[in-house]
């Protein structure tokens, strides 16, 4: 079996038994390893996402996308990263220096904290709080402080407008995302990601709560899009009107951090949707078909996870290149006049479904029983 959790268990036993280190040093080394692993995963994932996005965008627009650096352009994003490292970091005369340099920290730390709480596979989760969903909602919204700081400190009208739009958009859609997640917490009865995934072994939450789940899923995808300032909701950095929005004045790696955080946030939204709605890393399992389950279990859990999350990322790219950009009033109307009221009714609907025992896992056995009688 190719599960990475076996590797972590191996390292643990190596440190503890073979080398006989004391508890403190074992924990220390393991923490350092966790940090290194997270850092690597973060950077590599961002590079892959940037390449994939550019390539798929190319195909959507009937062109080739990056194809010069390496075979099919696969090393393009690595080359870009090296180039961005070699650029001079400058700041404009009139910026608020402290806030200007603090902004990327907020962006990166917020997305890193969220990244750490995502279950990538069986036992592959750095932080597994028992309030996981709440933690993710809380921590991911720290990123907007970075955006507002960047826009405010730049002393540039475009940055300012971009940051304000981004702030209004993010806090509005944050509500919908939070509500959709609360709806799913009602269904699974726990906020801990490992428990949520365990409970979806035989039936994904998306099907388990049928109508209410599907509505919550769609709302979560829409608001996730809006939160990451992408797709049809990219007016904070609408190139044709605001140059680059809140990060207009950033150069070199400072800009690179915003870029990195944006792509990672896109992945994080897809990952949370995968975990909460689509069963996370759990392979497809059917109750009573043990042979089938065994075969499915042979595929490592992280491949399941990245496969499902990859589908959602592709969906987000598809949406991005399909719909025209919204105006700010349309954007806020969509949230406050449609998604939020729908969400409140959806929450009540979900409570009724759960309390009346109308979830699919409850329905199917009782239907079979009824037919049998």
């Amino acid at each position, binding site marked *: 079996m190719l599960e990475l959790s076996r590797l972590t268990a191996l390292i643990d036993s190596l440190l503890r038994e073979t080398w006989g280190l004391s508890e403190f040093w074992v924990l220390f080394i393991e923490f350092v390893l966790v940090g290194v692993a997270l850092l690597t995963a973060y950077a590599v994932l961002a590079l892959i996402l940037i390449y994939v996005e550019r390539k798929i965008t190319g195909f959507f627009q009937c062109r080739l996308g990056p194809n010069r650096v390496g075979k099919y352009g696969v090393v393009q994003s690595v080359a870009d990263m090296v180039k961005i490292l070699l650029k001079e970091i400058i700041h404009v005369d009139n910026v608020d220096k402290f806030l200007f340099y603090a902004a990327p920290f907020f962006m990166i730390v917020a997305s890193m904290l969220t990244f*750490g709480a995502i279950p990538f596979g069986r036992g592959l989760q750095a932080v597994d709080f028992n309030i996981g969903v709440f933690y993710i909602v809380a921590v991911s919204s720290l990123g907007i402080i970075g955006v507002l700081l960047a826009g405010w400190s730049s002393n540039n*009208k475009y940055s300012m407008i971009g940051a304000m739009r981004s702030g209004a958009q993010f806090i509005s859609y944050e509500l919908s995302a939070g509500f959709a997640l609360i709806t799913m917490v009602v269904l699974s*009865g726990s906020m801990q990601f490992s428990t949520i995934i365990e409970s979806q072994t035989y039936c994904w939450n998306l099907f388990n709560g049928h109508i209410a789940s599907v509505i919550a899923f769609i709302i979560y995808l829409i608001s996730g899009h809006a939160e990451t300032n992408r797709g049809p909701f990219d007016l904070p950095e609408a190139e044709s009107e605001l140059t680059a929005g809140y990060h207009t004045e950033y150069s070199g790696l400072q800009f690179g951090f915003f870029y990195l955080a944006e792509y990672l946030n896109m992945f994080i939204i897809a990952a949370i949707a995968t975990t909460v709605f689509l069963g996370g890393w759990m392979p497809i399992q059917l109750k009573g078909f043990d042979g089938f389950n065994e075969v499915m279990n042979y595929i490592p859990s992280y491949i399941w996870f990245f496969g499902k999350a990859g589908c959602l990322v592709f969906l987000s790219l598809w949406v991005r290149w399909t719909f025209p950009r919204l105006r700010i009033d349309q954007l806020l109307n969509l949230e*406050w006049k449609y998604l939020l009221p729908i969400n409140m009714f959806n929450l009540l609907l979900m409570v009724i479904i759960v309390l009346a025992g109308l979830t699919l896992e409850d329905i199917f056995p009782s239907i079979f029983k009824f037919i049998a009688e």
Partner: protein
Amino acid sequence: MNSALFLVVFVTGLLLVCAGLGMAILLSPSSFNAQKGQAYECGIPTKGTSWMQFRVGYYLYAILYLMFDVEAIFLFPWATVVRDLGMAGLYSILFFLLILGLGLAYAWRKGALQWK
């Protein structure tokens, strides 16, 4: 254990930015040019500061958001235990959401959700 790991993740995030900036400062060239210090706006020298009064519409949404966000904090613990609470949980949250819905309806009626 989880709190320690949380700190590890936090420090990792900080390290990523610090290490990146450090590397960039070491590797990148630096030269002085007065033009570099100008704001990237329309090409002509920028007029005045950008730290000025801003459209009030954004703050209205921020205030509304505050109301709903505090409510979300109350909803999370309720959502985890609603199965055990049974119908009592449903009634109590119905009342709660009703008051909130009234608030939203009031803001809507008053035109706070209208972008002017």
